[in-house]
C-alpha cells in the first residue's frame, strides 16, 4: 500500500492556517457579547426595532418567489419575541433554515431568512451601555 502517502502539500497547510487564525481572531473579538435588549428586524430595506422585554408575535412580509405568491396572503415569516428571546415560529421559505435556528438573545446574534430577505438581529442600545 504505497497509497498511504499523504496528498497534502505545503500550500494546503498554509491556507488552512491562515483561515483558522483569521476566524480565531474575529471570534475572540466577538466573545465579549452580552445580553441584548432590543430586536432589529429588517425586511428588504426597511428596518423596524422592537423591545426584547415585551412578548409579541410579528407577521413579516418578505420577498417571495413567483411560485410562492399565489398560495399565501403575503405573510412569509412569523417572528416571536418571548421571555427575552426571539425565534422564527414559521416561514414559507423552501429551506426552513430560519425556523430551525435556535432562539437568540445575545447582542449580535441573528436569524436570517435568505429566500425572503428577512434579517433579525439582537442588539444592545447605546443608552443602556452608558448606564453600566
Amino acid at each position, binding site marked *: 500500500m504505497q497509497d498511504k502517502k499523504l*496528498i*497534502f*502539500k*505545503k*500550500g*494546503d497547510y498554509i*491556507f*488552512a492556517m491562515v*483561515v*483558522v487564525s*483569521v*476566524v480565531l481572531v*474575529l*471570534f475572540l473579538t*466577538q466573545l465579549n457579547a452580552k445580553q441584548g435588549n432590543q430586536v432589529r428586524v*429588517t425586511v428588504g*430595506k426597511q428596518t423596524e426595532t422592537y423591545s426584547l422585554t415585551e412578548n409579541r408575535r410579528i407577521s413579516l412580509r418578505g*420577498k417571495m*418567489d*413567483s411560485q410562492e405568491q399565489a398560495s399565501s396572503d403575503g405573510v412569509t415569516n412569523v417572528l416571536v419575541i418571548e421571555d427575552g428571546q426571539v425565534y422564527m415560529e414559521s416561514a414559507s421559505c*423552501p*429551506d*426552513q*433554515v*430560519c425556523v*430551525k*435556528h*435556535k432562539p437568540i438573545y445575545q447582542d*449580535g446574534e*441573528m436569524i*436570517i*431568512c*435568505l*429566500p425572503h*430577505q428577512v*434579517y433579525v*438581529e439582537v442588539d444592545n442600545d447605546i443608552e443602556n451601555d452608558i448606564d453600566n
Partner: protein
Amino acid sequence: MKTSRIAEFGMLLALALVLSYLESLIPVVIAVPGVKLGLANIMTILILYRMNGRFAFFFMTARVLLTGFLFAGISTILYSFVGGLFCILVMSVLKKSSFFSVLGVSMAGAVFHNVGQILVAILIMENAHILYYLLVLCVTGMASGLAIGYLAHLLMKQYNKIYERNR
C-alpha cells in the same frame, strides 16, 4: 471542441445534478444559511482538472441554472452563481501553482464560495453585520471542502484509469 469532450461534459453535468438533488434530500442539520456539503463540486473539480478553468466556469453556470430551476428555487440562483464564480476563480488560480494539492484547492474553493454568497447577501440586504456569519461559514467550508477534495481525489484516480483504458 471534440465530441468525446462534449459527451464527458454532459455526463459529468448530469452527475452533478443528481448529486445536487441527493444533497437537497439531506435534512439541514445546522441552521445557518449556506452551510452545505457541496457534493456537486466534486464534478466541478473533475472538470477543472481534466479540462480547464473556462470549462469549469461553463459547467458551474449550467449547473447553477439547472439546479435553480429544478429544485433549489429561483431566488438562490444569484447567490449560487456569485459563490460559484468566486469558487472557480480561486480554484483555477491555486491549481496552476504546484504548491497546492486537490485538497487545498477544494478547501479554498469552498471557503471562497461562501465568501461570494455572503457578499451578495450584504449587497442585497445592505447589512454588513452578516459578515460575522462568514466566520461560521469559513470553518464549515474548510471541513466540507476537505471532504469534497478527498472524494474528488479518490474519484479522479479511478476515473483517469477507466478513461485511459477505454481510449
